[in-house]
């Protein structure tokens, strides 16, 4: 019996005591390998990004269920549809910019229209590959994916939440887009001892009713830090982790709007059509005229730079969020 078979026979569980030392993609690669031990339908597809998408672990243990499609993303997406319709549970990964833009029509026609159970792990999203330039920025993907009927769109706050989303994805019906970053990013959670459900918001801070910040992805941690800073200045805000952009937890948004009268959305995405757009639609549909601001990438192509320099530039870091809260409140 090979070493691999030994491992499989014994079963292996990845203990995540190193959440702050690995990237979200690495968490995905490890969790999917763990899940595949019990679920023989799981197959993993990549497009010459095994090293970036961190699916090498899966390939090592399940080589017969791992498929590298080369630099041909659309073919990978449609082949995943063919596998899903044949009873497999495909997890496919590429960079967010290529999945959401290059493959938009294939995703919409072969995965969303058909309502097939395919999981997309979109890595290097937002400005996480900021120094890659516009060809590698993905700041339109939430807007595109959430306009597709049947699609679920999730933006985990950190590596801990990424693990929870990947685990939860096994039982979710229909297509799912999971948007993660590139590198090791600060944790929004101290540990993984919290309940997670796709589609249900999570209150990260609830210091008062001056305002509420609704955030997703890396911006959740930034919003938490802003809330902690504002608290010291006597301003109490609520921070909502809106990890699921679709289906949107509209009740949480309307409740926050009613109780605070001032909402700020923050995301590593264009201010058009993403989380901010979705929240604005919700408020307008409910006829709620409140103080409101969308933080994100303005309607431009972002400049080149490292994420830690770009987030402050576009005001989606903790300092930028703090300033926007103060401005919105007229302070």
């Amino acid at each position, binding site marked *: 019996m090979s070493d691999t078979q030994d491992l499989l026979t014994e079963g292996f569980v990845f203990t995540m005591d190193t959440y702050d030392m690995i990237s979200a993609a690495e968490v995905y690669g490890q969790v999917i390998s763990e899940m595949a031990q019990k679920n023989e339908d799981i197959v993993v597809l990549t497009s010459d990004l095994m090293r970036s998408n961190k699916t090498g672990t899966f390939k090592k243990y399940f080589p017969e269920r791992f498929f590298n499609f080369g630099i*041909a993303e659309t073919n990978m997406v449609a082949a995943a549809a*063919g596998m899903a319709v044949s009873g497999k549970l495909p997890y496919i990964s590429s960079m967010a910019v290529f999945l959401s833009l290059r493959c938009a029509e294939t995703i919409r026609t072969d995965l969303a229209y058909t309502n097939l159970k395919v999981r997309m792990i979109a890595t290097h999203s937002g400005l996480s590959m900021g120094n890659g330039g516009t060809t590698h920025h993905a700041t339109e993907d939430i807007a595109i994916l959430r306009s597709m009927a049947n699609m679920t769109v999730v933006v985990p706050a950190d590596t801990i939440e990424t693990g929870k989303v990947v685990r939860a994805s096994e039982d979710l019906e229909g297509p799912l887009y999971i948007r993660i970053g590139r590198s090791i990013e600060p944790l929004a959670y101290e540990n993984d001892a919290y309940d997670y459900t796709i589609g249900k918001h999570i209150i990260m801070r609830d210091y008062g009713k001056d305002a509420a910040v609704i955030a997703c992805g890396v911006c959740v941690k930034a919003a938490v830090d802003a809330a902690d800073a504002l608290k010291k200045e006597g301003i109490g805000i609520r921070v909502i982790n809106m990890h699921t952009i679709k289906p949107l937890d509209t009740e949480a948004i309307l409740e926050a709007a009613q109780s605070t009268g001032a909402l700020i959305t923050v995301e590593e995405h264009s201010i058009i059509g993403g989380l901010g757009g979705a929240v604005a639609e919700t408020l307008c549909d409910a006829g709620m005229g409140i103080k409101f601001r969308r933080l994100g990438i303005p309607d431009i192509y972002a400049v080149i730079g490292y994420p830690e320099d770009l987030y402050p530039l576009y005001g989606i870091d903790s300092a930028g969020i703090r300033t926007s809260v103060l401005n919105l409140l007229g302070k």
Partner: protein
Amino acid sequence: MRVKDFRNKAELLDYLDDKAMELRKQVIDLSMVSTGGHLGGAFSMMDIVVALYYHTLKVDPHNPTWAGRDRFVLSKGHGAIAYVPILADLGFFPKEWLSTFNKLDSPFGMHPDMHKIPGVEMSTGSLGHGLSIAVGMALSARLDKQDSRIFVLMGDGELNEGMVWEAAQAGSHFKLGNIVAIVDRNRFSLDGPTEEIMSIEPIRDRWEAFGWKVYDIDGHDMEALVDTFNGLPPASGNTPILVIARTTKGKGVDFMENNPIYHYTLLDKKSALDAFASIERSRPARRVTI
């Protein structure tokens, strides 16, 4: 699928030619109900799909999701008007359903929907997707140790799509001998002759260069179709198959043949009657005297 027992091959081929004739007439009927249809491409592909469904494919209308079945993907989804009457005739759903074609909330429109039409394996209509989908189906069949085949019917103009060639390289890379791709080589796309719009020749050389085994046959010769499908190497082989089926756009209706204006058309009553007569006249000579 085995629809009935035949005493010999001639009887089988006569049966298939009769079916193709009958179904071409049904397509004319359907196009009147649906106020138009992709008639040119429907008639060029008809003999191919008849040979597949009434002879070659392992499918069961009474158990359409049977795991060991062969798959058929109509990558040229605009051929639905030729495809769905076959599924009805085989009993996948009641023929009466077809009277709703193109009407509000009908299961049937120009392109087939897998969730609305029993027997349709994949929703299609956007050209260039079918072969990639077949790659996924073929990989799954191999994982499941099924000896089924994945048949895909593409239009010839469809070969312009880049995604077809992504799938072509994957088909040989993954050694998918269980894929049989068929090109309905009717020589026309919507705007005119393929070699004027965007040439696809030399088709054979291109596919062979991509590592596919190529058959080149007359797509209206029922015997050639049946012999080719009967003589395929085992599905467990390492080389994907490409069948160039040389066809005539509008085949069977003399005034439509090779005339791109009939790519999508609505006939008036007189033209429909002329079409019926032409379809009957153009049926190949019988092999067995009745």
